[in-house]
């Protein structure tokens, strides 16, 4: 068993993440179950709907139509997919992406790894693939948690639509994870990478959220990965292939950029 998972960089990197991934999965499933458990009381309470009706206009613009808040999609969007899911996927992905090269470089083990007959490109692609696999694992945990919760409280929601929304989260994570990978490849410094990527995450989140409110920002909102994550409302309408392709394309671009940067750089001791 151990021998098999030590076969290559991809499997070994995945193995290293197994404990983290397991805990993340447990946490995400628990979060889903707890959130969904409150849905029936939300649905049945008129007061909530009225509360949202009275909310200021800008909240409606940012978070969507309040009358939807008591529907399954509206509830899950507001409680989980609007902010919680992106935060979780970003933290997870940035931690993986920054650790893959910069983390190993700072730990000093990159010398040993790169002294093997592997090209840097190969090492990097295997590590990027393991990050993506871990993200898919987290997406799967999210989906399982929501599906279990929905079944438990009789929430009327399509499992396929849930999968669409979870996958959109995976793609968003892939964008920021591969951005962190690229910054880590350029700088070799994990702390810096985490800081810059997280700042870009927060910045682009607000860019997308505020763009509909401020006319001059309207066009710029489309530069934010968060726009492609949920503007097409995957939970309601299914995955928008165009938006998914933008996210996947951005992730692929950052991975390619990582290869380019990593291949040209001196490895620090």
């Amino acid at each position, binding site marked *: 068993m*151990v*021998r098999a998972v*030590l*076969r*290559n*960089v991809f499997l*070994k990197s995945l193995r*290293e993440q197994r404990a983290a991934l397991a805990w993340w999965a447990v946490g995400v499933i628990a979060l889903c179950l707890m959130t969904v458990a409150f849905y029936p009381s939300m649905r049945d309470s008129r007061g909530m709907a009225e509360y949202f009706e009275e909310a200021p206009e800008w909240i409606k613009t940012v978070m969507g139509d309040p009358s939807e808040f008591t529907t399954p999609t509206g509830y899950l969007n507001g409680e989980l997919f609007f902010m919680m899911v992106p935060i979780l996927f970003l933290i997870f992905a940035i931690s993986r992406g920054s650790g893959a090269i910069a983390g190993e470089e700072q*730990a*000093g*083990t990159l*010398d*040993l790894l*790169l*002294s*093997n*007959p*592997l*090209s840097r490109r190969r090492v990097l692609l295997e590590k990027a693939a393991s990050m993506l696999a871990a993200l898919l694992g987290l997406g799967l945990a999210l989906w399982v948690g929501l599906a279990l919760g929905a079944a438990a409280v009789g929430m009327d929601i399509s499992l396929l639509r849930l999968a669409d929304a979870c996958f959109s989260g995976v793609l968003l994570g892939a964008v920021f994870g591969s951005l962190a990978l690229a910054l880590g490849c350029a700088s070799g410094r994990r702390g810096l990478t985490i800081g810059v990527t997280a700042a870009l995450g927060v910045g682009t989140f607000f860019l997308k959220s505020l763009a509909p409110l401020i006319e001059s920002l309207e066009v710029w909102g489309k530069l934010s990965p968060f726009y492609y994550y949920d503007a097409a409302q995957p939970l309601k309408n299914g995955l928008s292939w165009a938006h998914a392709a933008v996210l996947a394309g951005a992730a692929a671009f950052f991975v390619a950029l990582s290869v380019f940067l990593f291949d*040209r750089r*001196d*490895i620090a*001791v």
Partner: protein
Amino acid sequence: MDGVAVKAEKLTKFYGRTRGVVDLDLEVRRGEVFGYLGPNGAGKTTTIRLLLDLIRPTRGRAEVLGLDSRRDGVAIRGRIGYLPGELALYDRMTGGELLRYLANLRGGADWGYVESLAERLQCDLSARIKSLSKGNKQKIGLIQAFIHHPELLVLDEPTSGLDPLMQHEFHRLVREMTEEGTTFFISSHNLPEVERISDRVGIVREGTLVAVDDVDSLKRKALRRLEIHFASPVPREAFAGIAGVRDLAVDGVTLRCTVAGSVDALIKAAARFEVLNVVSPEVSLEEIFIDYYHGEGRAP
């Protein structure tokens, strides 16, 4: 295939404005043990990491086993074993897991050989690396370098952290592998060790290769500091003018001096008196080097 294992031509590396190595011309012959000697910060690790393509030359080039260090890095690394100077291992793995992993990255290994190496070096492969002492980590580092019977071993300070017994075992391993035709490029700041295991020695100082020499001629030029304690006061004149002796100081019953090359004449002169003790404090590498250059003319 020519007889050259490592060849550097005007190899130069600057880290920004900081000097790594400058215009290094170097040739390591196949089958020899080449000791790469220099004080810390002289550029030994820089040279080695250039050969491994971990860092890229500012100018110049290097060939390893006839291949270009930049272009054919993957092929080169398949044929050499490397021990990093600042060895860092995956702390959460056991030694055995790490070696399996590294062996797999090289397309598998003869596990019996790995175990025999572990046994010789008295290395516990089942312990988590995090829990190992520096010396035991170093043993894992050595085993992983040997794992695939490479043609060339590039070892950066291989005996650092090893106890004397294991250093000895390491020297035996080097000798055995040399008999099978393996080439060694070993960096060290420890002159006695390099003297013991190398055929030829390259001395690097402040980023420049200042000399390449046979070990025998290095021994002839190397400086030793000697302190001889006598039973009764000795006259200074009895030791003046002995070939190779300098910085002579006689203080009653104690004689202090530095000797370049053979100590024979000095010992014979001392033997005329009753000698209580002979002490040879270690000479720092810097001192040896300073003498090696500036003292060429003065040496016998």
